[in-house]
């Protein structure tokens, strides 16, 4: 419980933001709650809802979400060695609960206490707590989103959330290159047909960061 408290402080505002922006994108309260449960990911939820509202085809929404959520593959690979002994149904449960903070907490717990058993309960227990907090926050966001006039610009909380996260993940030059190129590409690609702009911008930014890193290795050998 105690380990969960600091990350949950971050979950609440993002859940509120998700409820507000999902409502602003035109999803009904029922659709928003089902989507919150089904995806259990704020970024997937918000970006899909916005792309859907903008009339993007399903295949573009799915592809965009896949690129946006590639970091989940890192988490999956990071936890896999610790949970290899579990039956498949438990791996599915763990996978469903695998969020940014669940990964961060679990990997610390597992590496510091490699002798402790019941690792799946650590993730499932923590996941269940954050699941409840998440859905209550999204529900509160639906209520708030329905009450507050659009002129207040509450949808901007989504950009602010990711601005804060961007500041946290910018810690090396290739990362800055990925952000600058990805951001500029997103503005230039805004008018691409079928709402392809975001996925094109994300892939361009990832390519820029990777290329910068490759140059660093080649020229400086590190």
């Amino acid at each position, binding site marked *: 419980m105690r380990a969960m408290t600091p990350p949950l402080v971050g979950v609440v505002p993002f859940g509120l933001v998700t409820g507000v922006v999902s409502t602003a994108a035109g999803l009904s309260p029922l659709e928003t709650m089902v989507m919150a449960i089904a995806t259990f990911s704020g970024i997937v939820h918000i970006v899909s809802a916005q792309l859907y509202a903008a009339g993007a085809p*399903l295949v573009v929404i799915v592809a965009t979400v896949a690129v946006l959520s590639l970091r989940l593959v*890192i988490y*999956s690979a990071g936890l896999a*060695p610790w949970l290899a002994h579990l039956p498949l149904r438990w791996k599915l449960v763990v996978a469903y609960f695998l969020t940014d903070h669940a990964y961060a907490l679990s990997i610390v717990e597992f590496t510091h206490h490699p002798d402790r058993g019941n690792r799946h309960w650590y993730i499932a227990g923590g996941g269940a707590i954050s699941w409840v907090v998440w859905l209550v926050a999204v529900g509160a966001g639906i209520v708030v989103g329905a009450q507050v006039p659009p002129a207040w610009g509450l949808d901007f909380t989504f950009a602010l959330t*990711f601005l804060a996260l961007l500041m946290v993940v910018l810690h090396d030059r290739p990362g800055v290159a990925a952000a600058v190129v*990805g951001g500029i590409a997103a503005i230039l690609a805004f008018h691409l047909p079928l709402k392809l702009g975001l996925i094109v911008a994300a892939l361009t930014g990832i390519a820029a*960061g990777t290329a910068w890193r490759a140059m660093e290795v080649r020229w400086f050998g590190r």
Partner: protein
Amino acid sequence: MVWAMIVATALVTLALRFSFLGTLKPRAIPERFRVMLNYVPPAVFAAIVLPQVLTREGTLYAGLDNPRLVAALVAIVVARLTRSILWTIVAGMLALWVAQWGLA
């Protein structure tokens, strides 16, 4: 339709989370792919944020008369100082309201 979108995005997300957990033998991520994955968060976060801050209805709007740009600059400073999502949102929204109403 909306339910197909919800089911499809949920399945993709679960598949990514399950990807390496679901393999029978633990496997490492190939090195090249791992390097690439490092740059997913900065590229994705910037691609989400910049158009919302620097454009309005699809056209560039990058002057200091743009309330969202002013709010974002304030939010960047607060994010740097506090490293807190909550305080970044609070400061950014207050700055947005001041910029769009207080200075009008």
